[in-house]
């Protein structure tokens, strides 16, 4: 394992002590040693070699101009498209799909010289909170392989938490970066909606999806965010505003900042260990000079049901292209209807089918006003409540998840699984930036502190998170060594 951060690896690359290819090899062997956790679906093969060579040339030609990510190995979630590398979205229906194009966020990382090594396991079409919905099997949490890593970006969180790569990419539609970051004890950042292009991200819910990094430090997450962020002519929902420079913000600390603590996020339902860790973190922030203010977000209660109308409605349309006509699974039947039914019936897993049906129902003639239109109104209310809160505070601080990583198979009914995201999904509904950083352990398992900022206040969020991280050592905690393979299955 390599626990070095992006800055340390960059220094070794520039001193000639190592090469991008060596780092990539090392990352690959580290990932292979995690096989029992099953965090990775495939390696990026020729692309890794090609990109390592490109990074080496960039470093040789102008080491000063090469950015901090040049030559740094990483892994990305199986919903991001890279030309020539299979992307299956954790689904049988897309097994074998090789995109003929590269998405914008990935392209920007490639242009910065970062070296992809592996494609990470995730919940099918990013739908889930435990990574147990992957068609290719669940992922184990590095802190306790019998427990889930969170989801849907479970594989991406696990490879960073286990020290195999310094950073990885995930996607966050209702908490799919922040919640697994919390469960695995790493930093996971969901940028403002529209700050990172979604072009090349296989859509789950278009108005909520956002790509973001996992890293072992806020600084590394900021490097990755900076490389990806900014307007993209291929994604009309990206903001045309320039990206605020993050690096200068990071070191400014929280002294004098007003931080809001949403009453509803500290209510009953928090595990005692989670509450204790988060309260200690809030005290730490106060000690660093921030003023804590209690705020109220009364519509929080309605967020879950709002989310489970809007997200399934959008997914019911987004997943319609998986029809067996042009790519992916095709089950041949006599009639067109049977071909559709069999292809989609065999190709999609139960959670994906459940959400497609929920969304189809919510959009149906006669139900649209009662469900979808109503949900959009509540969504606006939720966003307005956040806006009002940010009139008086600079950022919000709260737990990322009410619970720590739970045992695999523990939440077999969908509703209890949906409740895992109750503290993260309002942020997606409002389109805000949010990060989860490690803030303690509860019964030996990581607890995450969530920092939420106003729209386009990405740098502000990273600044608060960095200030906390600089004053604490939770982000340097490493999971216990994995049991040997024979023990893992004992």
């Amino acid at each position, binding site marked *: 394992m390599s626990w070095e951060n992006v800055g340390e690896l960059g220094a070794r690359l520039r001193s000639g002590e190592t090469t991008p290819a060596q780092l990539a090899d090392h990352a690959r062997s580290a990932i292979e040693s995690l096989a029992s956790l099953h965090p990775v679906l495939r390696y990026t093969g020729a692309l890794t070699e090609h990109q390592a060579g490109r990074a080496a040339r960039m470093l040789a030609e102008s080491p000063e101009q090469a950015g901090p990510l040049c030559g740094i190995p990483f892994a990305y979630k199986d919903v991001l498209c890279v030309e020539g590398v299979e992307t299956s979205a954790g689904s049988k229906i897309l097994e074998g799909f090789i995109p003929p194009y590269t998405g914008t966020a990935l392209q920007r990382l490639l242009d910065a010289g970062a070296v992809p090594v592996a494609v990470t396991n995730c919940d099918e079409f990013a739908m889930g909170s435990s990574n147990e919905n992957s068609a290719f099997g669940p992922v184990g949490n590095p802190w306790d392989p019998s427990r889930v890593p969170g989801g849907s970006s479970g594989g991406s969180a696990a490879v960073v938490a286990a020290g195999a790569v310094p950073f990885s990419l995930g996607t966050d539609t209702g908490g799919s970066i922040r919640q697994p970051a919390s469960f695995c004890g790493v930093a996971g950042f969901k940028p403002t909606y529209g700050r990172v292009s979604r072009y090349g991200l296989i859509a789950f819910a278009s108005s909520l999806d956002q790509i973001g990094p996992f890293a072992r430090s806020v600084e590394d997450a900021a490097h990755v965010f900076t490389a990806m962020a900014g307007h993209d002519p291929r994604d009309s929902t990206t903001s045309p505003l320039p990206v605020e420079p993050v690096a200068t913000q990071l070191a400014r600390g929280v002294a004098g900042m007003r931080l809001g603590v949403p009453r509803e996020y500290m209510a009953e339902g928090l595990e005692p260990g989670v509450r204790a860790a988060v309260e200690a973190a809030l005290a730490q922030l106060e000690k660093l000079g921030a003023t804590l203010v209690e705020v109220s977000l009364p519509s929080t209660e309605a967020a879950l049901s709002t989310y489970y109308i809007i997200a399934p409605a959008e997914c019911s349309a987004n997943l319609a292209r998986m029809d067996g006509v042009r790519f992916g699974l095709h089950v041949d039947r006599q*009639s067109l209807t049977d071909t559709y039914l069999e292809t989609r019936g065999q190709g999609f897993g139960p959670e994906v089918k459940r959400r497609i049906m929920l969304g189809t129902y919510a959009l149906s003639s006669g139900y649209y006003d009662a469900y979808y239109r109503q949900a959009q109104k509540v969504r606006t209310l939720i966003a307005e409540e956040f806006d009002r809160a940010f009139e008086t505070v600079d950022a919000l601080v709260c737990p990322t998840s009410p619970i720590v990583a739970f045992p695999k198979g523990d939440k077999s009914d969908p509703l209890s699984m949906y409740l895992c995201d109750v503290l993260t999904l309002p942020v997606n509904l409002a389109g805000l930036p949010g990060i989860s950083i490690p803030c303690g352990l509860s019964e030996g398992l990581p607890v995450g502190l969530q920092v939420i900022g106003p729209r386009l206040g990405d740098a502000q969020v990273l600044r608060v998170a960095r200030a906390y991280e600089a004053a604490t050592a939770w982000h340097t905690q490493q999971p216990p060594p994995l049991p040997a393979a024979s023990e893992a299955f004992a």
Partner: protein
Amino acid sequence: MTATSAVSTLDQVMERWEPVIGLEVHGQLLTQSKMFCGCSADYIGSPPNSNTCPVCLGLPGVLPVMNRVAVEYTVRSALALNCEIPERSKFDRKNYFYPDLPKGYQISQWDMPLSLNGHLTFTVDGAEVRCGITRVHLEEDTGTLQHAGDILQQARSSVVDLNRAGVPLMEIVGEPDLRTPAQAREYLVRLRQILVYIGVNDGNLEQGSFRCDANISLRKHGETGLGVKVEVKNMNSFRAVHRALEYEIVRQGRLLDQGQTIAQETRGWVEAKGATISQRSKEYAHDYRYFPEPDLPPLHLNAEFVDRVRAALPELPQQLAERLQRENGLSAYDAATVTAEREDARAFESLVAAGVPAKAAANWLMGEVARLARESRTPLPGSGLGLEGLASLIKLVEAGTINGSTAKELLEELYLAGGDPAAVVEERGLGQVSDQAELERLVDAVLAENPAAVADFQGGKEQALQRLVGGVMKATRGRADARVVTGLLRDRLAP
């Protein structure tokens, strides 16, 4: 009456029933690129699936980017049809599964279209008809399918071509204000003419860049409610629309006369059978589950933009026809004929600008030139003769240098080959014999050579004069003015 109702004719049905017809027109926009990606919107003739990219193939992970020119063209069309342009509009997803629809939804507009509340006014049999336009909105075209069999459900195999998928498509929804197949046809003719004039559509019904669906129901004369409507598709000519509507009126009228009810359904026009056949009944009607397209921000069209498009709106055919009557003294009929096609109207104006009298320009364009253009499949501007050559030719006639029949022969010869008519006339000595003394000499010679004809004429046989005129024309190899020759002959033969 009821005993014979099963075989009622169209006229009989229309005595008892009033048709209510509304038309939906889809027009492909003449943009460079497709609606949401950079592929060419000109897809005709490309090898199957070659004019495609990840976006119009609907691959996982791609996003649409709106074509601004398509929005401008739609606004231009809406303004030409007297529509209002709301400041805010948006795109929606229309969800249904079909192999020619790559994403499983069509990006269209549902409750906030680009434009609303327009109208089109025209004349049928001397009476003015005003048809409301409910809305003009923007969407994307689908791909095309080819089946081994008539319809997909019965096909052994089908192939998909997505070259057309994503081409900008404008939908013009008309109010049910039309009452006869003739009105429906004229509405389409006028609508097509406008779209072609303003440069947004090529008006090709055969290739489907301009297509029409019709909704038709019958009701008792004097009633204001609406009967059960039937949607008719697959009509790819004005004539087909006319025939299909006539067919439906008779079909529905006979059913109603027999006391039966009309099934709400979609029917397809089958040209070869001259009949409509049922395609889809209401029970199988789609629930399209429209919802706002989350990948595209709502559209804000400010007044400044709309004003700019309005100011740049070219002269519409009706305005042009009125101006040609006013400024060039054309009859209403000639003006309508000359302005029917935009290219003809342009040619007419060029000829007049080049000094050709308006009436002559109209006659030549609508007569001989139209015939040659049709037969040679070469429009005048692309012909060898061109506008300049035609102007010069007509002026030779008007100046009396050549006569009409010489001009027609020259036009025929030079239309494709090209050449300067004045030079050819000069070179071949085709100019009219207009020297009075010369003509008188020829007339005298012909009279001397044809005593029988002279005698016949003087004996009261008027047609004998034609033989004498023919003789003079022959002697001049057709270069004399027949009217002048006739006059000279009458003078000489006058008692």
